[in-house]
C-alpha cells in the first residue's frame, strides 16, 4: 500500500542475529521436515469432510435472524456511504481521510485476517448484497413474483472476481502512482471508484441475481469468502455450526476461475511488496525505456507497473502449474485439469500468509489511526471531533523491526505448512496408495519452498 510510508513497516533497520536469507533456509527445512512427517503419519484424508456440527439453536436464531441481517447490512451500507462521502468531500491527504484507511486497510486487510479464523464475516455486512436483497424483496412485493434473471454462464465461474481483484489492486498501487513519485491513490479517486463499482455490482446483481453474483463475480464476496474457507465457523441450512478448520476449502475451488482468484491474490501482494524493493531496478529500467519513446511520465509509469503486475500473475501461475505438471508424473495421476482445480485451494493459506507478512504491521499501525483521529474526524478537516479521539495518533514503537520480521517469517512458515497439509490430504483422496500420494507431493513441496523463499526475499529487500 504505497501511499503510507510504513506500508511494509519498519521504523528502524532490523538487527537480526543471522542474515535474513538464513531464515529462508530455516523455513525451507521446516517445510521439508513437515513434508516427511505428513508422509509418515498422515495416511488417510481428513479434510474431505467438513464434519460440521451445529452450535446452539438459540445462538443461530440470534446471529442469523432477519433483524440481525438487516442491522448488519445497514451498518455496511452506512459505512460505505461514509467512506464515499469522505472521499468526495474530505481532505486530499490520504493519511487523514477516512476513505482510504477504511477501504484499503480496515476492510481489505481486516476481513481476510478475521474471516480466516471465524468464517465469512463479510457476508452479513456486504453493502451491495444488502441493497440487492432489499431491491429483490421490493420487486417481489410490488410485482408479486420473483424477478427473472439471466442464467450465469457456468464457464465464466469466478473469472470476473479474479479480474476485479487485480483491478482493485491495480487501482491502488498502479493508478495512484504518478510521474516517478508514488503518491498513492487520492481519496477522491477512491470514492469515484467505489461509486463506479457500486453501479457495476448492482447492475450485475440485477442481471444474474444477488446471491449468484456474490458467489461468483462480486470481488469482495469472493475474495473474503475465499479466506473464510479456512475458518472454523460456517452456516448450513440456516444454522450456524462448527467445522474442522481448513476443511471447507476443499470444496471451494470447484468453480472455473477459482485458481485465478487465489493466484491473483498472491501475485498482487507480491507485486506490492516487490515494486519498491526487488523489482525496483527492473521497473526503473523499463520506465526509462518507455519514457524515451516519448510517452508522458504518468502513462509510462502506469504501463510499466501494469506489465510487472501481469508478469507477477503469470509467474505465480506458472509456478503452480509446474507443480501440477510434476504431480502428473506419478502413476495413477488424474487429468491435468482435475489436478489444477483440485489443488487450487492449497494456495489459500499461502495467499493469507503473504497478506499477513506484507501488511500485518501496516494493519497494526493504521488501525490505531482508524479508531482515533479518522473515526472522530473522517473528513480530515481538523474541525470535527465526533468521539473525542481526534488528537490521538499512531504509536509506532509498539512493534519493533525485529518483531515485525519474526511475525513475517512465522506467517509465511505457518501458511506454507498449512498449504502443504491441504495438498497432502487432497493427494490421499486422489491416489489410493498413500506412497504414491506422498510421492506426488514432492513437486508441491518444491512449489511451497519456492513461494516461501520468494516471499522472504521480497520482505528482506523491501525491509532494507
Amino acid at each position, binding site marked *: 500500500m504505497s501511499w503510507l510510508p510504513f506500508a511494509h513497516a519498519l521504523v528502524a533497520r532490523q538487527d537480526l542475529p543471522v542474515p535474513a536469507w538464513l531464515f*529462508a*533456509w530455516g523455513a*525451507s527445512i521446516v517445510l521439508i521436515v513437515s513434508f516427511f512427517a505428513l508422509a509418515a503419519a498422515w495416511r488417510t484424508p481428513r479434510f474431505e469432510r467438513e464434519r460440521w456440527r451445529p452450535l446452539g439453536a438459540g445462538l443461530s436464531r440470534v446471529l442469523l435472524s432477519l433483524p440481525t441481517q438487516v442491522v448488519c447490512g445497514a451498518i455496511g451500507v452506512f459505512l460505505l456511504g461514509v467512506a464515499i462521502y469522505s472521499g468526495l468531500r474530505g481532505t486530499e491527504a490520504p493519511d487523514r481521510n477516512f476513505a482510504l484507511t477504511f477501504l484499503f486497510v480496515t476492510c481489505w486487510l481486516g476481513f481476510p485476517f478475521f474471516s480466516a479464523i471465524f468464517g465469512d464475516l463479510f457476508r452479513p455486512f456486504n453493502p451491495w448484497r444488502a441493497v440487492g436483497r432489499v431491491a429483490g424483496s421490493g420487486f417481489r412485493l410490488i410485482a408479486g413474483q420473483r424477478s427473472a434473471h439471466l442464467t450465469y454462464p457456468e464457464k465464466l465461474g469466478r473469472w470476473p472476481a479474479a479480474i476485479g481483484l487485480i483491478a482493485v489492486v491495480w487501482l491502488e498501487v498502479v493508478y495512484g502512482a504518478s510521474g516517478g513519485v508514488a503518491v498513492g491513490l487520492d481519496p477522491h479517486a477512491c470514492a469515484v471508484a467505489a461509486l463506479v463499482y457500486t453501479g457495476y455490482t448492482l447492475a450485475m446483481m440485477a442481471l444474474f441475481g444477488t446471491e449468484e453474483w456474490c458467489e461468483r463475480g462480486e470481488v469482495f464476496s469472493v475474495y473474503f469468502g475465499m479466506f473464510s474457507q479456512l475458518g472454523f465457523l460456517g452456516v448450513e441450512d440456516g444454522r450456524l455450526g462448527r467445522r474442522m478448520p481448513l476443511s471447507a476449502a476443499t470444496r471451494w475451488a470447484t468453480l472455473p476461475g477459482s485458481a485465478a482468484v487465489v493466484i491473483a491474490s498472491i501475485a498482487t501482494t507480491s507485486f506490492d511488496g516487490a515494486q519498491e524493493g526487488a523489482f525496483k531496478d527492473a521497473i526503473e529500467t523499463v520506465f526509462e525505456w518507455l519514457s524515451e519513446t516519448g510517452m508522458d511520465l504518468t502513462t509510462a509509469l502506469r504501463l510499466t507497473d501494469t506489465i510487472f503486475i501481469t508478469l507477477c500473475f503469470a509467474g505465480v501461475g506458472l509456478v503452480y502449474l509446474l507443480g501440477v505438471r510434476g504431480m*502428473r508424473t506419478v502413476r495413477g495421476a*488424474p487429468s491435468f485439469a482435475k489436478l489444477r482445480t483440485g489443488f487450487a485451494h492449497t494456495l489459500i493459506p499461502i495467499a493469507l500468509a503473504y497478506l499477513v507478512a506484507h501488511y500485518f504491521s501496516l494493519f497494526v499501525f493504521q488501525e490505531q489511526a482508524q479508531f482515533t483521529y479518522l473515526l472522530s474526524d473522517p473528513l480530515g478537516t481538523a474541525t470535527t471531533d465526533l468521539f473525542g479521539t481526534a488528537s490521538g495518533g499512531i504509536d509506532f514503537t509498539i512493534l519493533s523491526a525485529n518483531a515485525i520480521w519474526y511475525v513475517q517469517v512465522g506467517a509465511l512458515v505457518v501458511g506454507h505448512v498449512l498449504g502443504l497439509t491441504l495438498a497432502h490430504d487432497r493427494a490421499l483422496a486422489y491416489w489410493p496408495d498413500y506412497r504414491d500420494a506422498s510421492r506426488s507431493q514432492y513437486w508441491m513441496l518444491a512449489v511451497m*519452498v519456492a513461494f516461501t*523463499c520468494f516471499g522472504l526475499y521480497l520482505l528482506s529487500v523491501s525491509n532494507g
Partner: protein
Amino acid sequence: MLPLAHLGHWLWIFYVVPVLIVIAGILRSSLLARRRDSARDPGPEEVGDAGAPPAGGTGREAENGDSVTARRPPSR
C-alpha cells in the same frame, strides 16, 4: 579492496538455493524410483494378464498417459 560493494545485488541467489536443492532431490528420487520400477517390471512377454486393472486403484483415475503397470494375478 574486496569487491563486496555489489554483493547485495546477488543476495537473491541464497534464496534460490533451497529451491534448487529440493528440485535436485525430487529429480534424484524420481530417477531412482524409475530404475526400481523398471527393474521390478518383468517386461510385456512375461505378463500373465495385461488387461487387469492395477490392484487398489480405481482404474478411471489412471489418465496420465503412462501405461498402467499390469500386475500378475496371485498364484495358487
